[in-house]
């Protein structure tokens, strides 16, 4: 075989690249708040929490004294708190594990799993979403922008209203992947198979998005690489602004600029590898 394994790579990746949205119902949030939150969490996980800045995301393990894993997730740094994304059913056990070590520290732990809903925009879906967001924020740099609104179409097709506060992050497992991790208000209808079927049955619904969907969806999506605008990463929808994006030209411009230093810098800052120093340090 001229390309051993090549067939395998394509067939796996083919499906993911073709695009899809996964309603990530299983994502839970553990909130760590209080003045001593960073020092406290630093002492109970494998990641260097003290050096992180608001907007950073890091993968980490939580261990027992013998080194065995008691938790795994992604730490999201906000201005006033730390959030740990971990499977919903493991939030409570991890909370109990950490809570045993809170003695005099100013630390408050809470299960915030229902604070927002989550979805993963994978493959082409992630590209489409990013394209729309970046085109809208870089509108002044792209002269030839048709009056298309791909993000709204995308969201309407999935019954996902992005007009409200939406947080977009990179794929936490593989940051330079196309996948985007989207958090949106729980009151917004989550994308479900029923919704998708309904949108297929009634295509006019996608052609005529509601006013709420069209109102400034990406004013808060200025930093797709990490957290969104706002000191704490929590998104402030802000005042309504014209939302123009999409089109072939915008897509080409985005793809051309994708490998540029600016994009790369955002990636490195928002989701980077763990610090690693000389052995024995």
């Amino acid at each position: 075989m001229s390309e051993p394994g090549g067939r395998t790579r394509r067939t796996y990746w083919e499906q993911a690249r073709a695009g899809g949205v996964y309603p990530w119902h299983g994502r839970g949030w553990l909130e760590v708040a209080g003045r001593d939150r960073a020092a406290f969490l630093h002492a109970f996980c494998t990641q260097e929490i003290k050096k992180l800045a608001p907007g950073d995301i890091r993968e980490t393990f939580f261990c027992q004294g013998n080194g065995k894993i008691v938790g795994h997730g992604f730490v999201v740094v906000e201005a006033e708190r730390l959030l740990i994304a971990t499977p919903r059913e493991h939030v409570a056990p991890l909370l109990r594990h950490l809570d045993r070590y809170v003695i005099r520290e100013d630390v408050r732990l809470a299960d915030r799993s229902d604070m927002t809903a989550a979805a993963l925009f994978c493959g082409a879906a992630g590209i489409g979403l990013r394209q729309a967001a970046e085109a809208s924020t870089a509108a002044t740099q792209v002269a030839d922008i048709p009056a298309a609104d791909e993000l709204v179409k995308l969201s309407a097709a999935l019954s996902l209203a992005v007009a409200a506060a939406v947080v977009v992050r990179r794929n936490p497992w593989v940051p330079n992947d196309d996948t985007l991790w989207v958090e949106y208000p729980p009151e917004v209808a989550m994308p479900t198979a029923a919704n998708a079927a309904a949108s297929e049955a009634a295509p006019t619904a996608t052609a005529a998005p509601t006013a709420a969907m069209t109102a400034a969806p990406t004013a808060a999506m200025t930093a797709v690489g990490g957290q969104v605008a706002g000191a704490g990463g929590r998104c402030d929808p802000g005042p309504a602004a014209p939302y123009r994006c999409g089109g072939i030209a915008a897509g080409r411009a985005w793809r051309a600029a994708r490998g540029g230093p600016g994009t790369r810098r955002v990636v490195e800052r928002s989701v980077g590898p763990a610090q690693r120093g000389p052995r024995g340090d």
Partner: protein
Amino acid sequence: MSNARSDRRNAALAAIDAGDVESAVALWDEQTFDAWRIAIGAPLYGREISADQLPQEASRTAQAISFTKGCYLGQEPVARIDSLGHVNWELVTFQLAATPSVAPSPTPSVAPSDAPCESDSAAGQSAAGVSAAGVLVPGAVLAVDGKPVLKIATIMPWSVVNGGPATSPGAEAPWTHAGLGYVRREARRAARSAGDAMAEGVLATPAGIVRIEPRLFHG
């Protein structure tokens, strides 16, 4: 050789460019999400990662473990492994061309949250890592010469992931399964030396041919 991946991706992007988002975007179910996780080597706690493992065994060291931060709960064994030793098992993506006597699992299967893959024992399973019904299941342990070489954490029929057969290297047998599992260090080293340029290597077990890769997509 046609590049089906690029063709399909470009078609999806063209559809988005043309405003036809619906045709480019599908709603994924749990099965597709698991197939995607298998493809990028993305473990979840309670599925592939459990309290049985050390952090380095999950193959997320570069992303998730700092060796410069100083003390934390569990730091001593983690640092000791890094500076003095190694872990015996590591999480990998694998593909399996099962022997005809081994039936593909009828549905995609992952370890339940309360019983992630066991480390050493595989109750109710033969040495080949197959259940009494002849179906590969999470927790199965594939062995070579009586020594365990691969512990299955998540496994899916290839047809679910791929939608059709794929050819295994150097053989006509199609892949029947794909998944995430823990491979024993010695077996991985032996497989690597015998493997081809694209994969970590190939293991021949009684349950079938196993192909090992850290992940299928190197972002």
